[in-house]
């Protein structure tokens, strides 16, 4: 049986007259890595700070490991929540060595067990040789690892990570992402991570909450968010894609200028409304034999693949990926394309209806 380590229900937070968080619900199971994903200012860091206990909530409640820690009338202080935090700038104490930093959170224990714990943690991240170094003497990646094991030393019920990769350069970031995921899984720790970068979220998290304007729009796996977005913003925020106008017949046939997407009687109820369908670049395949032609507007070479920007007859622009080995079409020439849709993500307004489709 899995149990919830973190339960956030109906949380609201405001700063002055600005509503920063509204009706936020979230459940994270033991051992799960959850991610709060959103653009800056969406409230993700505020939510993390509410969970940590640095901010009090205006409404709703936060329960950690069965204990209610935040509500309108209650604020258990951060030090009594048994929550570990890895800060964006790591916040390593500059006047303490690596070992002293790690020992800080367990300073009440007896010296012998402290030193045992510190050396086993250092060993787990291969930093034994740096135990007497000061934080300034470490590389960015090493600082991050120290910050991580310092947070894990008191064996927290829940680990919070605020933009853990934003201080690392690109090449290091790839490596650290893999390393962090492996470490979190090996410690078996339940974690909540905040990021604005979808690749980080996709790489590390088991489940992702996409946030906008203080609300969680969708909560699910990376696959679900990308292929079955339930919200216009989620569809736009994750990956590229276009919204192509579609017509729905009274029988439930969904037609676009690139052909029929699906034939589903259960959709009949939505006929007569203004609809559009999400097309990801990988939903469109180059096919010279196809009867549907589009004019090439621009070609961007990306190394592994190339991106064609195509203008349809209606004037709508769409994108299509092809392997970079494939024969190039010239700008202004016509190119044959066909649909290869697995999920029909149909929007009427802000919210989406998702149907599985058998690609033809």
């Amino acid at each position, binding site marked *: 049986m899995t149990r919830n380590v973190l339960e956030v229900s109906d949380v609201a937070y405001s700063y002055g007259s600005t509503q920063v968080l509204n009706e936020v619900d979230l459940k994270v199971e033991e051992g799960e890595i959850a991610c709060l994903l959103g653009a800056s200012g969406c409230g993700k860091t505020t939510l993390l700070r509410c969970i940590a206990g640095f901010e009090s909530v205006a409404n709703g409640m936060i329960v950690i490991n069965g204990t209610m820690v935040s509500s309108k009338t209650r604020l258990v202080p*951060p030090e009594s929540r048994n929550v570990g935090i890895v800060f964006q700038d790591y916040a390593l104490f500059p006047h303490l060595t690596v070992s002293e930093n790690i020992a800080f959170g367990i300073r009440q224990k007896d010296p012998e067990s402290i030193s045992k714990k510190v050396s086993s943690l250092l060993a787990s991240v291969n930093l034994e040789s740096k135990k007497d170094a000061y934080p300034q003497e470490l590389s960015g990646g090493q600082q991050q690892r120290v910050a991580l094991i310092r947070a894990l030393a008191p064996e927290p019920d829940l680990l919070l990570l605020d933009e853990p990769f934003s201080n690392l350069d690109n090449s290091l970031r790839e490596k650290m992402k893999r390393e962090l995921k492996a470490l979190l899984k090996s410690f078996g720790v339940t974690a909540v991570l905040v990021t604005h970068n979808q690749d980080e979220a996709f790489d590390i998290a088991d489940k992702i909450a996409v946030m906008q304007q203080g609300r969680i729009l969708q909560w699910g796996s990376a696959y679900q968010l990308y292929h079955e977005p339930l919200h216009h913003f989620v569809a736009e925020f994750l990956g590229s894609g276009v919204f192509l106008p579609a017509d729905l017949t009274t029988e439930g046939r969904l037609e676009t200028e690139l052909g029929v997407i699906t034939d589903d009687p259960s959709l009949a109820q939505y006929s007569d409304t203004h609809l559009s369908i999400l097309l990801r670049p990988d939903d469109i395949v180059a096919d010279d034999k196809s009867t549907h032609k589009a004019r090439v507007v621009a070609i961007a070479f990306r190394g592994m693949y190339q991106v064609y920007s195509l203008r349809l007859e209606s004037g709508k622009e769409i994108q299509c990926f092809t392997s970079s080995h494939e024969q190039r079409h010239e700008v202004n020439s016509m190119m044959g394309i066909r649909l290869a849709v697995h999920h029909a993500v149909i929007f009427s307004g802000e919210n989406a209806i998702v149907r599985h489709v058998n690609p033809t």
Partner: protein
Amino acid sequence: MNSDKPSDPKGRWWRLSTILIAAVAIAPIVTVLLSWLLPFSEHWDHFGQTILPKLVVNSLGLLCLVAIGTCVIGLSLGWIISQFDFPGRRFFQFALLFPLAIPAYVIGFVYLGLTAFSGPLFTGLRSIGVGFFFDMKTIYGAAFVLVLSLYPYVYLLTKQGFATIGHRYFEAARALGVSSSQVFFKVALPMNRPWLFVALSLVGMETLADFGAVSIFVVDTFSVGIYKAWYGFFSPTLAAQLASILVVIVGGIVIFDKVQRGKRSFVSLTGLSGRRRRLHGRKAIICFGYCCTLFLLSFVIPMLQLLVWALQLDAEIWESMLELTSNSVLIGLMVSLLVTGLCLLLVYTYRFYSRPFIWMASQAATLGYALPGSVLAIGLFLPLAAMDHRLADFIMNLTGTDPGLLLTGTVFAVVIGLSIRFMAVGHAQLHAAQQRVSKRIDEAAQNFGSTGIDQMKRIHIPIAWKAVAASISLVFVDSIKEMPLTLMTRPFSWDTLSVKIFELISEGEWEMAAAPAVILSIVGLTSLVLLGKEAK
């Protein structure tokens, strides 16, 4: 379940102490302003008609002369040192700050001694047949001395300004066809205005606060007027009323200063410090000569003359310095430790438990830097004297013995007065240091169960120990150099080095005064050099 709104009872005590410190710090200002409610002294008519206009004219005249002088010298030095490379630049960059270590009244009496009719300058001139003589005891003489003693403020801040602005703007101006000499007036000077104005407001406050130099040059400014009203007319009320006029003038400067400080960041481009242009030939000689002349006038000549006088003194006089020095050191230690402790409280209340009014309160707590020592003395004396008599009566009733004057008859008043005056010095150091520490550090510590005093002890003081040390040494030097406040609040016949210098030069005993002056200057110089090394 806890049904209270989240609150922090610990923070309440911190905030309360901040407000208490602020209240004590502004009490002298309030006292001085309230003095108009007291019955007018019988001297007021005479004073208002004959003396007051003279005080106003002298004070404002001196203010203008010193402002113009320090502006020209400080700004030109700041520009030369920050933009050009010439022989001696590295030495002068630091050495031109040395006058900060010597009190203006010391530079003042040395020049008086040098230019006395029987002094070395005119004796020397007469010996080669030049019978020319002028008297330095004029407003121009006082301005000359104050300019020599205060130009380092303008030099230091405008140099900082030029460095912050960066060469990129000057290069851009050159590229747009502005000649290199026009760059200074068209680009560098206008952009440096915020730094220049902050420096000039400091110079203004120091000029108005000066008592020692003006009184030996017999220029009656407000500081002297306040002293005379108190000790000449024995009228604390009149002194307080005069002080309140000075408070209003200084208040104007403080507001000007706060506005200018806010503007200083508007141009800052970081990491753009270009290379200094190397000067050759005549230009290099002119720059070297200019720096050299100022260094000689403001530091070398006064120090040499002091040493010449001091070396002629008997051992007996040096022995008598022992008690004065220990009094000064005692006062310096008490004030610097008290100020640093209180400033830690102010700075970390603001950091940990801030409320909108806390910033206001800590600003109020550091207002004393603007108050001339004579104003502070009178503003402090009146309430302390009132409290003293109550306290004495109370203890008398309780124990049956007369404790004497516990507040005004002991060093208590001196320590409190100097602490109020130099709170800003410690606060600036500690506030800047805590700003460099990320707020996440506090949160990390709190997450591990360390808050309040414990967090200060484990995290903040170890991180900011250099600022703590700087605060202690700067306040130490400032408080032993301070003269009028110590003179006016000290217990009867209890002297420090600075007070003794004033007493001796009032009697024209320049050679004797050299002994305490040399000790003071060495202490000041040592701490300046130590801090300079630390800053590098």
